[in-house]
């Protein structure tokens, strides 16, 4: 962890990385659906008007136009709130991007519960379930600024369609500042401990790391895994973890239906040994509050994660 360095939003990192990349990658195009401000892409768009396309509040056309651009040898990065991008536009993602194999990078901004008090219309607590079910589409959710930067540098050069879910808030640092590793299908182990395995990704990784620290004060040593690549999944590592541990606890900012926990469960059911506890959002519209209040309510804050781990270990 690199707490001495100022935390940043994923949007800030993405805008800076793309602004750098466009200087040497002139085919890079940013598309927005009246979402440039929410995406933090205003400076990219004003500095690079020839590499920017606005489609208006029309998320279906946003994705289809991006697919047409990619077909015509451009490298489009599409920015829209995850809630709309993965539901309003899901058929365009399935057909025009994934099925047609167009090199479109879909950036779902303000993902998960970022728009906590704006209600279910603006929540994307099912986006991973939806996107992971689409063939030919990679799915990622980075946890901090350094991992986001590494992921972006991969995406800029990759030729495969991908969906990335990022949140809105400043991300606490989970990685060292020179972190540059990103490999599709590769999870990262951030902490080693023999008593319990905690697996998370995205914005719940930081409270999961904090929970591991709380557990350590109570004599419980936790391994902490950052999944980051939700599809492809690091099945090899999950297989090993399922053999090694008696208990795995997954933590996600997503519905417990067909999210990260469910994906882990699929692997564990085939290979293990380990029991699995899934922490996430219940199958109901989320309550209102700040994101921190909502996380605490659903047991996704550090204290709750630690408590759940202790209870589960006791069986």
């Amino acid at each position, binding site marked *: 962890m690199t707490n001495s360095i100022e935390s940043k939003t994923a949007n800030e990192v993405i805008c800076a990385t793309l602004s750098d990349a466009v200087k040497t990658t002139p085919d890079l195009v940013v598309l927005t659906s009246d979402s440039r401000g929410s995406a933090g892409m205003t400076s990219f768009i004003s500095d690079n008007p020839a590499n920017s396309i606005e489609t208006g509040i*029309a998320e279906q056309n946003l994705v*289809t136009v*991006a*697919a*047409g651009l990619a*077909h*015509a*040898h451009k490298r489009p990065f599409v920015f829209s709130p995850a809630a709309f991008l993965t539901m309003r536009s899901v058929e365009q993602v399935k057909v025009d991007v994934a*099925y047609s194999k167009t090199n479109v990078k879909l950036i779902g901004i303000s993902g998960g519960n970022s728009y906590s008090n704006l209600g279910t219309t603006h929540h994307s607590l099912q986006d991973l379930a939806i996107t992971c079910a689409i063939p030919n589409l990679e799915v990622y959710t980075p946890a901090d600024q350094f991992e986001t930067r590494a992921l972006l540098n991969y995406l800029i050069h990759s030729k495969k369609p991908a969906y990335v879910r990022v949140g809105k808030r400043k991300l606490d640092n989970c990685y060292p500042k020179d972190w540059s590793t990103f490999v599709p299908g590769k999870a990262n182990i951030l902490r080693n401990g023999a008593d319990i395995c905690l697996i998370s990704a995205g914005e719940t990784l930081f409270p999961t790391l904090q929970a591991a620290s709380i557990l350590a004060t109570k004599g419980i040593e936790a391994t902490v895994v950052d999944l980051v690549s939700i599809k492809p999944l690091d099945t090899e590592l999950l297989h090993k973890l399922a053999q090694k541990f008696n208990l795995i606890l997954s933590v996600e900012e997503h519905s417990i239906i067909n999210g990260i926990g469910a994906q882990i469960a699929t692997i564990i059911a085939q290979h293990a040994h380990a029991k699995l506890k899934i922490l996430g959002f219940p199958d109901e519209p989320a309550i209102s509050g700040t994101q921190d209040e909502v996380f605490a309510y659903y047991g996704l804050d550090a204290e709750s994660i630690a408590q759940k781990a202790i209870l589960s270990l006791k069986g």
Partner: protein
Amino acid sequence: MNTIELQKKALTIREAVWELIYSAKTGHTGSDFSCIDILTALYFDVLQQTPDTFGKPETDTYIQSKGHAVEALYETLALRGYFPKTDLNNFSGFKTHYIGHPTNDIHGIEMNTGSLGHGLGLGVGVALAAKMDKLTKKTFVLMGDGEQAEGSIWEAAMAAGNYHLDNLIGIIDHNKLQISGSTTSVMNSESLASKYTAFGWDVIEINGNDMTDLLDALHQDNLTSKPRLILANTIKGKGISFMENQANWHHKVPSESQYLEGLNELKAQKEALEND
């Protein structure tokens, strides 16, 4: 290519499609026959595209939004030399790439379509890329008229008008029928001409089964700085008398006697052309 030669090509494609659907026992027969003249004009006269230049940045793009008329596209591409006609022997069969909707696994096909309402937005993307790269290529998108009820078409139409995509040509195969009946009875989309005009398009209305009309419209220079819509009034099932203007031939497969009768009609039309 002169008009008579193109009309002969269109009849050759009609025979091939009729045969293909009869043999495979599947296909969108009426929809295919409606747009075969449009496809013939495009692939044998208008499109700046050959099997060798297909997919290059400067090459014209054709996107078939009404993907279900794929048999017409397959037989046009085969006759134009994009792939051997024998490739279609396993049409819709086990493990074939030649399925019931277009996919870009096949040489000559740009994008995977079949779900309606996607083609125009794809065309907007390709046309925007051409503008960004200062290419003079054109992008053609063929849509159905029933398809005009899809909201996504109007998102794309608005964007094309907004961006003054005068390098984009939308064509509506306006046969006034869709699977459940007449387009006015299922969901009235008239007037399509005034709707597209209001969205910032230059609209030309023609007889879409008339080769002279088609060539005139498809070759006509666009000096308007607007995207162009060719509203091609067509006859669903055009070319076989008992199939013409019948909604129930949307995806009907001919019986043996219908097949033979249809084949005779097409042969007679070809002979009439030869004697012209």
